[in-house]
């Protein structure tokens, strides 16, 4: 690391201030270099921690990576006793529950965001936004608690019989329902990610320049036409970004899903069958994993989860950034 002064310091010409001419140690004592060094060391430690995190996951999954390679993700058989580890049921469960969550939360979340940013009166919008941001603060284990004791019985008693009666011929709605299932996990995840979709989409929508709206309204568009034809297309990328961000949350969410998905390593066509996700299997089995290959297989799953959520997150932030930056908000 260079000890040279950063741009901001160099651009200020050091005047006849005695300290500035007195060399490195004097300046260190005077506070300039000291402040710079202290902050840069802490900043560097963030990079170090993140790099260590990646390295540790990579190193500690070596056995499983060498043993199974890419076949890890196509194997359906997860049998720690026999030393056979196939991650497909978990990958499948993670994808299905996240997709379900998006299907349920995106329409509602976008509707709410449009209402808050475009259609609602200012004061009402502020109050509702405050409440929705509180919803984002509810810990995930609380969602799990409500999932087990409220949602699962509710689905079992009312929702599943209805779906089975009307759409039961479809394979995705068939079969017996024990309450814990992909579907239950999807509902819990939907509730958990909806506040993110609402608050980020709302921010992106608010970044759309007022002139855009004024021009549309001046041409005689109604509020809704202005919103749908002008504001939404303008904010399109940012909205997609908010959905990606919610997806990243759903992929990595652990506790609430673990509590309602049933934790059975199988691939079932029915959404009402119990399943498993990557995060849930790590949470459940990590402390029980005894032999090295087992531990490495679980850490391999963690590595995959890490990489996937990082990629989705980066894409999301890029999309949100490009929308708000066009307006100079970044």
């Amino acid at each position: 690391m260079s000890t040279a002064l950063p741009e901001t310091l160099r651009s200020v010409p050091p005047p006849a201030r005695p300290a500035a001419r007195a060399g490195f140690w004097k300046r260190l004592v005077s506070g300039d270099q000291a402040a710079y060094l202290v902050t840069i060391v802490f900043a560097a430690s963030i990079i170090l921690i993140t790099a260590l995190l990646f390295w540790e996951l990579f190193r500690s999954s070596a056995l499983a990576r060498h043993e199974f390679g890419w076949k890890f993700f196509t194997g359906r058989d997860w049998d720690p006793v026999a030393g056979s580890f196939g991650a497909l049921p978990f990958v499948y469960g993670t994808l299905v529950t996240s997709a379900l969550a998006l299907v349920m939360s995106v329409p509602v979340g976008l509707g709410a965001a449009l209402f808050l940013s475009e259609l609602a009166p200012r004061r009402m919008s502020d109050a509702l936004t405050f409440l929705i941001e509180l919803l984002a603060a509810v810990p995930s284990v609380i969602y799990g608690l409500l999932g087990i004791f409220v949602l699962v019985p509710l689905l079992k008693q009312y929702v599943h019989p209805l779906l089975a009666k009307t759409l039961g011929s479809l394979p995705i709605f068939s079969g017996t329902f024990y309450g814990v299932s992909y579907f239950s996990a999807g509902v819990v995840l939907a509730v958990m990610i909806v506040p993110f979709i609402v608050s980020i989409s709302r921010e992106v929508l608010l970044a759309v320049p007022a002139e855009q709206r004024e021009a549309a309204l001046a041409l005689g568009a109604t509020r809704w036409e202005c919103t749908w034809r002008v504001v939404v297309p303008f904010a399109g990328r940012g909205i997609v970004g908010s959905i990606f961000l919610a997806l990243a949350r759903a992929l990595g969410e652990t506790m609430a899903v673990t509590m309602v998905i049933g934790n059975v390593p199988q691939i079932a066509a029915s959404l009402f069958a119990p399943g498993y996700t990557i995060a849930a299997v790590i949470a459940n089995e990590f402390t029980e994993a005894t032999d090295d290959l087992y531990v490495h297989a679980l850490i391999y799953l963690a590595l995959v989860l890490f990489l996937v959520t990082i990629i989705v997150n980066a894409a999301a932030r890029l999309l949100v950034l490009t929308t708000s930056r066009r307006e100079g908000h970044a």
Partner: protein
Amino acid sequence: MRGPSITRRLVNGGMALVTGLCALLVVAVLFFILGYLLWNGARSLNWAFFTQLPAPVGETGGGMANAVVGSVKMLALASLIGVPIGFFGGVYLAEFGRTGWFAWLVRYTTDLLNGVPSIVIGIFVYAMVVLPMGHFSGFAGGVALGIMMIPIAVRSTEEFLRAVPESLREGAMALGASKGKTIATVVVPAAMHGIITGIMLDLARVAGETAPLLFTALSNQFWSPGYSQPMASLPVMIFTYAIAPYEDWHRQAWAAGFVLLAAVLATNILARLIIGRSRYKPVH
């Protein structure tokens, strides 16, 4: 001049209604959660919850005093790790590294760290702390939560420092203060209010984290003095008690859920009220 046609007006009104209902639905979920936990949690809550240890299986009564204390202790340790790194990292980004590749890298990794699923942080701390120590401990739990605190502490510090007007810095420099002195005595105090509330929000967020504690602090049915033993915490207790088959434990889980949610939401509301109308948006 005629207004929009009747169909267009109907669509306009209809969509306002539909989107309004969406917003209402989301807010209704919050009230449902609050109401349900209040109803179920307050009923199960009693003084013993805060003063007694968990009762052995089969016995009624008991409390979660050790989990309450454990949560507080681990949050204290987490602050010792997360706050300095987050604060100084934020100062670096706002005051020294506004541009340049190193600042870009710091910002990038901060966002990256923010996106890491909490269970992955748990695995990391297991490998870095639990394995070398040879056993689960409150210390490892605190480290895991501390790492989770860093990204938000960095971003909120940076944001509030940047909101300090440039003229304050120029004024201090013009009076002959060094850059370091300007930051320490003028800029940071001006932003202190915001930085502290940002850290409150940060603490509220990690207070409810469960997954990273599962293989770092684990849990404990007894008191764990110091930081070297497995340590109970409210979120892990809620998880264990909720999935257990005992009616009595479920009641305890509701009580613990109520206490945790009340603490988290109260901190959030307080912090947001203090921040008030400032332009700061909590990092997601």
